[in-house]
C-alpha cells in the first residue's frame, strides 16, 4: 500500500507540473514537447471542438482563406473577389513565368503601394484548399479534416501544426497584413495571433477533434 507520503509527493509533483505548465502557457508560446506531456490534463473533446471553431474562424477569414483556394487563382479583399490581372496558381502554386506571385509580392508589405508581402509569398497547395470550386468556404468539418490529414498537410502532426501557426511567416502575415492601395489597413482575423495559437494548443491537447458531418 502506497504510503501517504508518496501519495502526497505524487500529488505535489502533479500539482507542480500543472502549475509549471500553466505558467509556461500563460507566458507565451510553449514548446511542442511540453504540450505533449501536458495533453493528459485539461482539454476535453468539447473544449477541443470549441477551440477548433475559433481556429476555423481564423482560417476562413479573408486574410487566410484568400490563398487557400480550390481554383487556379487566388482571391483578394475582404469580399474575396478573384485577384485582378488574371494572376493564376501555376504548376507550383507560385504563379507562372512572367506573372509570378513574386512579380509583385516581395518579402515584406509594401505599404506605400498597397501590396502585401511576406517570405516566399505563394498559394497554399490545392491539398490545403479550404473552399470549393465555387469559392465557397468548406464546412468546419471539411477544413478540419484537411488540416489534420497528414497526406495533405505536408506531414504535420500536432506539434508541427502548432509550430506552423506560431511561426510560419505567411501565417504571421495575417496579423500584419499591411495597407491597401487606398491607404487603409487590411482587416486582421477575428482573433489575435496569441489567441489563435492558444486555441491551436487547446485543440491539439484535446486530440485535434473535428466536428462530425460533412
Amino acid at each position: 500500500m502506497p504510503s501517504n507520503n508518496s501519495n502526497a509527493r505524487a500529488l505535489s509533483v502533479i500539482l507542480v507540473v500543472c502549475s509549471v505548465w500553466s505558467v509556461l502557457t500563460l507566458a507565451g508560446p510553449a514548446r511542442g514537447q511540453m504540450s505533449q506531456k501536458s495533453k493528459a490534463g485539461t482539454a476535453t473533446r468539447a473544449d477541443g471542438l470549441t477551440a477548433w471553431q475559433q481556429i476555423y474562424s481564423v482560417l476562413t477569414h479573408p486574410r487566410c482563406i484568400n490563398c487557400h483556394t480550390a481554383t487556379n487563382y487566388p482571391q483578394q479583399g475582404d469580399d474575396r473577389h478573384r485577384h485582378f490581372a488574371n494572376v493564376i496558381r501555376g504548376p507550383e502554386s507560385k504563379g507562372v513565368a512572367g506573372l509570378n506571385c513574386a512579380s509583385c509580392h516581395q518579402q515584406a508589405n509594401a505599404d506605400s503601394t498597397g501590396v502585401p508581402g511576406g517570405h516566399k509569398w505563394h498559394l497554399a497547395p490545392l491539398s490545403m484548399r479550404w473552399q470549393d470550386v465555387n469559392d465557397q468556404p468548406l464546412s468546419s468539418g471539411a477544413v478540419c479534416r484537411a488540416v489534420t490529414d497528414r497526406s495533405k498537410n505536408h506531414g504535420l502532426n500536432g506539434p508541427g501544426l502548432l509550430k506552423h501557426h506560431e511561426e510560419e511567416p505567411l501565417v504571421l502575415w495575417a496579423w500584419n497584413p499591411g495597407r491597401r492601395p487606398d491607404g487603409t489597413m487590411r482587416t486582421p482575423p477575428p482573433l489575435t495571433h496569441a489567441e489563435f495559437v492558444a486555441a491551436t494548443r487547446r485543440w491539439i491537447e484535446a486530440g485535434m477533434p473535428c466536428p462530425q458531418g460533412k
Partner: protein
Amino acid sequence: MATYELNVNGQRKRVNVDPSTPLLWVLREELKLTGTKYGCGISACGACTVHVAGIATRSCVVPVSLIGNRPIVTIEGIGNDRVGRAVQDAWVEKDVVQCGYCQSGQIMSACALLKANPKPTDANIEESMGGNICRCGTYFRIREAIKSASGQLK
C-alpha cells in the same frame, strides 16, 4: 531619404531617395531610364515590368527599399541578351506595336516566359501574358511574335 546601391543592366548605380519610392520611379526619374512605363501604379497592367534577379517584376509596386542587391534588368538592357534580342526582333518583324506604350512591359514579360520555357504552348503564352494590358489591343500579334521568337530560339 536613404541611399541605395542598385545593380541596373549590369551597372552599379547609387541613388538617394525616400525608401518608399517604387523602383519604377527610381528607374525613370533618378536613373532617367524611361523605357519602363507607368500605366496604373497598382501592378494591374504590366507596363512597368522589369526583371529582378531574373523574375519578371512589376516595378510600380516594389519599394526600392525591398530590392537589395538583386540585379535589375530593364527594357534598355534586355537586348543584350539572346532571348531579349530575339523577342525584340520578332516584335519588329511581326509589326506588333501600335501606340507602343505597353510594349516594354509586354516584351519583358515575354522574355521571362521564353527564358523559363523556350517552347511555350498557346495556353502557356496566354497565362504568362495574361496580366499585361494593351489598350490598343495588339494581343493577336503579341501571340504571333512570341511564337516566332520561340521558333528562333532553338
